[in-house]
Structures are given as C-alpha cells and as structure tokens.
C-alpha cells in the first residue's frame, strides 16, 4: 500500500494526539511522507478528540481524506463523530474492554478488538492502555518495532518519572505489538461507563455514586475526613476511575456532596 489513511479517535485526555505524534515521528524516521490534522473541541477535556494521519511513500498533496483505511476507536462516545469515514474497505481497531463491538458500524471490512484497558489495569500501569493500542497500530502500519518503542518513550519521557514505570510502558508496548487481535469473539466490554447509579446502603445511611456524571477528579477522596472513599475499578464518563465508598467508615458529613463539581456523589442519613 503506498498510502495509509489512519484515523484515531477517543475522549479528550486519553492521549490520542500523543500516540498520533509518536506514530508520525516513527514513520518519518524511515523516509515516509506524513501529514497530521488534530481535531478537538474548545473544551480541554471530555469531547471527542480525533487525529487524521496520512503516511505515504509519495508527497502528500492534500491532508484531508474521506475514507479511512484504518480507524482506531478508544471510546464509545467518539464513534458518532467518525462514522462517516468508515467505508467497506476500512479496518476498525477498537478497545474491546470499553467499546461494545455491536456499536461499531457494520459496513467496516474488518473489526479487530484489543481489550487494552483490561490488560493495562491487570498487567501494566492503568494509564498505559494507549501505549498498548499504539503497539498494535505500529504493527498494522508496518513500522519498525524498535524505533516505535524508542519514540513513544521519548514522547512520554516527561511523564515517566521512574525506571519501573518506564519498564512497564515498554512491556505494554511490546505486548500491544505482539498481541493477537480478536476477530470473531470479542472480550466483554467490562469498563464501559455504566448508566445506572451505584447505591450502597447500611442500617442508617445511603450512599449514591453516579458513574455517568463522575469525572474522576478525586476531590471527594481528598476532602473525606475519615478516608472512607478510594478509587475503584469502574470507569466514569471521562474513562477515569470512579470512587468506591466504605459505608461502615462513612459518617455522612456531606463533604463529598459539598465539594463534588459534578454532583455525582452524596450520602444521606435515613
């Protein structure tokens, strides 16, 4: 293939533009012509973030395209904004632990799943899911694996504070590069945002946490005077973890509701 039209989409803050830049830097090392258009809203977080990339062995005359060869989807909410670029010859790669495979448009030629969020949380560091996806994209676009690994580590160097974390990101990349992608049988979308409110009760108080509103800022955990809250396994609306409550410790002081900027948490006395 002389030209690859690559489209990466997800939630703002997931690292879409970071992995897009790393892919281009790697492609540039081996004498390819590249073009890149980032697309996101005025908000810094929480709107779909899309990257349009072209990797070609001829000069790129026009950076826009109407049909993607490879479309990467990291969050279910972003599908609506990229559905017009998915055509009968598009290969869709998606994070099958956050996106339901039935939501992917049927028209796509191939639907490849990779439960990156699940593996990142189980095996590597929780925020490394985009590096796993990056590894899979590097393989699909036939990039050199060693070069790709060095590029992503140098792009992320400001965030990787110690050697241990860097090593886990290198492992995550290698895992993504060598992962067998799911074709027919997909993983269960375990970490997709729930729509119902979590209700936790004991004899004299009821706690409510709404994952559909929670953005995972952690202010409630900081402001809890008895440390009854901590981050849990579930994902909130911005793909960040939602707090869980230890109802036995809770004294129903109301600090979490008072400080929550999103109105996502509250404890009531019966």
């Amino acid at each position: 293939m002389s030209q690859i039209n690559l489209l990466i989409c997800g939630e703002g803050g997931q690292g879409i533009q970071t992995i897009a830049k790393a892919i281009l830097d790697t492609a540039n090392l081996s004498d390819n012509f590249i073009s890149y258009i980032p697309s996101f809203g005025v908000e810094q977080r929480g709107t779909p973030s899309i990257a349009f990339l072209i990797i070609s062995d001829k000069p790129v005359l026009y950076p826009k395209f109407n049909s993607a060869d490879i479309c990467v989807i990291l969050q279910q909410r972003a599908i609506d904004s990229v559905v017009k670029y998915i055509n009968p010859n598009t290969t869709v790669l998606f994070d099958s632990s956050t996106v339901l495979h039935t939501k992917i448009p049927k028209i796509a030629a191939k639907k490849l799943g990779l439960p990156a969020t699940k593996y990142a949380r189980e095996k590597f560091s929780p925020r490394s899911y985009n590096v796993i996806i990056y590894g899979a994209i590097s393989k699909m676009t036939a990039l050199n694996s060693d070069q790709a690994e060095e590029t992503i580590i140098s792009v992320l160097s400001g965030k990787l504070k110690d050697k241990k974390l860097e090593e886990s990101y290198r492992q995550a990349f290698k895992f993504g590069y060598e992962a067998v992608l799911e074709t027919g049988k997909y993983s269960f979308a375990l970490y997709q945002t729930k729509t119902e409110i979590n209700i936790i009760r004991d004899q004299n108080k009821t706690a409510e946490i709404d994952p559909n509103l929670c953005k995972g800022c952690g202010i409630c955990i900081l402001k809890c005077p008895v440390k009854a809250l901590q981050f849990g396994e579930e994902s909130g609306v911005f793909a960040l973890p939602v707090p869980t409550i230890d109802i036995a410790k809770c004294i129903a002081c109301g600090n979490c509701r008072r400080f929550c900027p999103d109105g996502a948490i509250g404890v009531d006395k019966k």
Partner: protein
Amino acid sequence: MIDKMPKSWNRKTKPHLFCPGCGHGITLKQLGYALDELKIQKRTTFGIDIGCSLLAWNFLNCDTIQTHHGRTTPVMVGFKMAKPSRVAIAYMGDGGGYAIGLQSLLHAAFRNDPITAILVNNENYAMTGGQMAPTTELGIKTSTTPNGKTLNFGNGFLGPELVKQISQKQSFVARVSVSQPEIVKLTLAKALQNQIQNNSFSFVEVLSICPTNWKTDAKDSFLRLESMQKYYKLGEIKDESN
C-alpha cells in the same frame, strides 16, 4: 440525590463541559443554591463571557446571554436598564474581567450599576492552554512563563481592592474561595440581595482551581489554592479611606 441539587441545576445537560476537578462546577452549584435560597431562579438572567466561563451556557436552568470577550458587564448593565425587574448576573473569568474587560467592570462599579458580577479567578487563561494572566502570582510557571513569572509583568492583580477603591458606598465587594463552598453560597446570596434590595453594584471574586492547566492532582490543587489565599485575602473588602 438529584433532589438535593439546586432547582436551577439543569439535569439534562449533565455531565457538564468543564474539566475534571474544575472550580467552575463548585461555584455554579453554590450559585444555584443561592438562587434557590432567594427564590429568584425564574427572574434571573445569566450573562457569560468568552473563555472557560462560556462552558456554563447550559449549566443553570435560567435565561442566559453569551457575549463578546470582556463585554459581559456592559451587556448585563444594558439589560438591567431595559428590564429593571430582572436580576442580572455577569459571570466571567479573570481574563475577561481583569484583562480585556477591566474598563467595563470599573465603570459599572463607578456608576453603581445594579448588577452582580461574579469573577472566577484561576490564575491563568485556561481555555487556550494555561498562559500567563494578570492574576498569575510571581514565580508561577505557565506555558508563556516557563521560568516563572518575573516582576516586570507585575505580581497578581488585586481586582476587588481596585473595584472597591472607585465604587460607591452601597456597593458590595468580596473575595471567596472554592475551598469553602458554604461561604461561597452565603456571599453570592448577599451579593444578589445587594442588587435586589439596595439597587447597587456587587462584585464577588471566587478563587478557583484548574487541575488541567496547573498540571496538578486534587491534593496539589488545593495546596496551591491555600498558598493563593495567603496572597489574595479572603472576605468582604472594606474601603479603608472612609
């Protein structure tokens, strides 16, 4: 849980558009409680500025006007002149209020126009990526001051003190912080009362947090807010010359 939220808190538009941990969410929620307390939701008009504050366009369930950058105050003054029975709120950030829109704010205070101006101060231009603002304190690193803000750009801008200097006696000027949400609510209610009962100008600056552009987590954000409170003194600003 939802019935514990303010009546004006528009459930249909949630989750709102602000970043995780944004102080705008805390401030607007307390404003909603203040509107409930005074029972003025139906006769409130809410003016918003350009910048992060514009993301509040559908936060509250009351009439909203979106204006040009820094022109929230004059638009709300004009609105109040045309419809004196309404309660006019001008909601802006520190860029809109202190940088481009300062003359509008000062003249509204000088003329004692009966509106309530609420200014959320997070020490940077947050929507464009955290550049230096007039309110940035000395030594703070932003994307345009990579070695820390130096004295030739001035220290943090003391807005409420300046507004109080030129405003008239009846006006109400105060500074509060999102680290004390209950006080935010009480102060906003007092500012709205001043507009309704005394027919005078009121101005409240809310010190806020910006985890996205400060690049901090919840704990570090509130630590920085504490150090901000040492420079920006909280409470009602009194005119010492009188």
